[in-house]
């Protein structure tokens, strides 16, 4: 029983999870606080291509590690945020952006929520108007059980 517990704790330990990943030999070094802040802001807007529900900043995947280095390199080459995003989009597609560009194919993503919200507001307005409309019984059967 004890050995089983030990085994379990070993499997659950972070050291085991890292075993099949290369350890980051040299963590990123920042030249200034401003650079670090810009780097974090930028990598939070980029999606990891491997573990697709994490940002580039959060992910421990090998490819995320390498892309973080690449982003820092590009920053130091004097590229602005848009240029760095374009660089990644050219290689990995629009998917890497958490905020996709406003285009034909992404139109629904951008205006979809607003359309749904408006439709909901329309339904609510219609219901409210009907309840207030003259001629309707003061106690409609809609709200009776409440």
């Amino acid at each position, binding site marked *: 029983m004890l050995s089983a517990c030990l085994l379990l704790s070993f499997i659950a330990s972070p050291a085991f999870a890292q075993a099949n990943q290369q350890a980051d030999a040299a963590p990123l070094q920042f030249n200034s606080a401003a650079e670090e802040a810009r780097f974090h802001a930028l990598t939070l807007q980029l999606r990891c*291509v*491997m573990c*697709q529900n994490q940002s580039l900043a959060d992910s421990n995947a090998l*490819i995320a590690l390498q892309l973080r280095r*690449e982003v820092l390199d590009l920053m130091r080459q004097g590229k602005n945020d848009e240029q760095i995003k374009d660089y990644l989009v050219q*290689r*990995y*597609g629009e998917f890497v952006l958490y905020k996709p560009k406003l285009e034909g194919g992404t139109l629904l993503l951008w205006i979809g929520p607003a359309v749904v919200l408006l439709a909901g507001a329309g*339904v609510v307005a219609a219901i409210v108007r009907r309840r207030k409309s003259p001629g309707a019984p003061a106690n409609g059967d*809609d709200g009776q059980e409440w």
Partner: protein
Amino acid sequence: MKPSRWLPLAAFALLAVLLAAGVWMSRKPDRDALPSPLLGKPAPEFALPVLHDPGYTVKLSDLRGQPFLLNVWGSWCVECRVEHPVLTKFAETKRVRVVGYNWKDEPADALRWLEQFGNPFMVVLSDVEGRTALDWGVYGAPETFLVDGKGIVRWKHVGPLTDEIIAKELLPLVTKIEAER
């Protein structure tokens, strides 16, 4: 019936259809595979050392003229071992040149892997740093690209190749590319 009676039901039915569509669309095993923005575009230029002869460099232009398959693998990659027999069988048909792309691997490990399982590749390129792979949008192994004789990326598959994928996707495309020439 009054609208207030059937409206919730309709809303529920709509949501159920939406959910069913989501489940249906996610049934594919490669649902996480990203479409490559390179498709239909010229393959990114590269110059990489040959695994078996690091003093010798192969450039993309050296492979021009005929289509080739670029297979990204690493000795650390479990799925690559699954894929290996399939790839070997395909390479032996000599239908298309199969170029190996050894990604983020120690050359010694890669050589040992090929010795153990066999080498299906015409040539194996070595990218220890993985810098060139970024240009190709590689994010995992195995990944396989089909590049035509003009150097245009025509197809990409993420994950291990299977006999079915080769028969249904790759071979018809190779036939099409050959007919274009």
